[in-house]
């Protein structure tokens, strides 16, 4: 009996759900391992029972909170996928403003009718079993994760930073090309995709377990960023702070 899988989306662009559909060469093999029973982006069925729930998007409304708690009760394994679900990603940038101000900025006078709370990762609301980082998720990492979950293995995430993947590819360090990069403190696993194509890493996969943030702030400043710009680099994908309300 194949494990059943449901995919849910909360606050985000839903691009990580789409990334699953983009695993074109592996999708049929994945469907041999699991049975999809609910996924609004790809099917009309809405099963109420499933073994594995994949969740993209941040939790940012009272409705989200209620729904993700229900999902947690219905599934055996809950796996947030993508930066928004993993560490609140870009969404957490709104948390530094008052929610009233946020609503007014986006919706003007009509804002009052919307329900919004500070954005948080799925793990801040319910216990999770594993999380896939990235904006969007890495397709290879997704497929391997599904396989490992089916085998009963703990999926592997690199504990080392992006620099390792750059070196294995022999990329010229983007700092040496006059650009800026969050790679030295960011968890690898994407194959250093941005530096490989000449851009600095934005840190979408979150920090490594033991990031030397002070060293990196000094490096960014030494290569010419102002203190404000340094913080912008740090905050873009990693501003979620569970000490804030």
């Amino acid at each position, binding site marked *: 009996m194949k494990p059943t899988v449901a995919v849910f989306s909360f606050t985000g662009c839903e691009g990580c759900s789409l990334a699953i559909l983009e695993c074109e060469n592996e999708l049929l093999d994945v469907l041999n*391992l699991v049975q999809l029973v609910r996924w609004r982006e790809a099917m009309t069925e809405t099963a109420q029972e499933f073994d594995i729930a994949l969740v993209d998007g941040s939790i940012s409304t009272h409705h989200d909170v209620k729904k993700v708690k229900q999902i947690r009760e219905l599934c055996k394994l809950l796996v947030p996928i993508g930066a928004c679900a993993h560490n609140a990603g870009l969404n957490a940038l709104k948390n530094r403003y008052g929610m009233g101000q946020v609503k007014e900025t986006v919706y003007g006078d009509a804002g009052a009718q919307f329900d919004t709370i500070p954005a948080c990762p799925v793990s801040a609301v319910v216990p999770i079993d594993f999380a896939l980082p990235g904006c969007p998720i890495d397709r290879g990492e997704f*497929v391997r994760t599904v396989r490992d979950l089916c085998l009963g293995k703990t999926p592997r995430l690199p504990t*080392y*930073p992006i*620099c390792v993947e750059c*070196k*294995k590819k022999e990329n010229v360090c983007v700092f*040496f*090309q006059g650009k800026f990069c969050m790679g030295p403190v960011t968890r690898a696993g994407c194959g250093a995709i941005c530096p490989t194509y000449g851009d600095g890493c934005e840190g979408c996969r979150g920090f490594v377990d033991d990031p030397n943030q002070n*060293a990196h702030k000094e490096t960014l400043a030494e290569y010419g960023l102002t203190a404000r710009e340094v913080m912008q680099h740090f905050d873009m994908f990693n501003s979620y702070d569970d000490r804030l309300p």
Partner: protein
Amino acid sequence: MTLQVISVAEIRGLLAQLMEQGRVVAPHKRPGDRQWAFEDLTDPADAVLQYTTTIIPAKKYAFPPKETLLRYELGQAPSVTAVVDSEPLVLFGVHTCDLYGLTALDTAFADHFADANYLEKRAKMRIIGIECVPDEWCFCASMGTATIDSGYELFLTPLPDEEHYIVEVGSDAGDEMLKGIASREATAGEVSYLKTHLNRKITQERHLDSDYTALPLLFTGFAESPVWEKWAEKCYGCGTCNLTCPTCFCWDVLDEMGLALTTGERRREWDGCMLEGFARVATGENFRENRTERLRHRFFRKYAYLFTRYGKPYCCGCGRCVRQCLVKIDPVGVINELIAAHGKGGALIG
């Protein structure tokens, strides 16, 4: 054999001749300030003759970043097949430090269990060495690797006009390579230039404040030094120093099952002792949890542990570790600071 002199045009001709016979790799320019990499040569004109170091040393051709060790098949009749991929290869443009690096790896990979994956690739390599362009991070003279008299087929040293190179032949295969290539005997003046040049190289400014042969003993006095912590404060633990090092050879092994769950492969990938997960074992215990312990371990491994085990240092003085390091953790700086703080007597006066 007497020393020969050949022109740059003849070197390009030699490369063209070798390319007809098989795969040739050579340094290529990469974007950014003074960045080069060994790549497959498709046009003899692309080979860079004068450069400092490549980002990754030539070891990547004998010990690739990712390598399949075996493939397995499950089912009624499970099977396992060892995989050794190797092919004849000419490595052009290898510096003395990197030649030493390869000999250090040869020793390590032949020790205990001879590593077929490495050794077969190495056996099919022919190497043309070339004299380097030192920069502010090199310290080969301190490690005894400024000159080397084996490990190559040919070795090229530019004459002052930079249009001609002195050729030293290091093997029969080297003699074979030179067949059909126009060369002339080096003049007495050119031979004497070579000696002057090498003397200049071994007296380069940047040096350790100790003879390298004393390092293992010296290090016995450094174990508890506060110097480690000071340098580790700015260390990322990103492993760049490990991965770019010509003498680092640690790897991780993992099994990758195919999606059909019927076949899979076991492969190894470069690992590094500066990485946080390197010393974590199955129970979750990590023997070197913090960056200070890892930095100290790396230095001990380079200059003491492997030196003692194999009778030679596992550092070739190429300076890649600091050149590629964003925070410039510099072996010469670290070791000289240790010597300044604790003296040259090591444990004897410690």
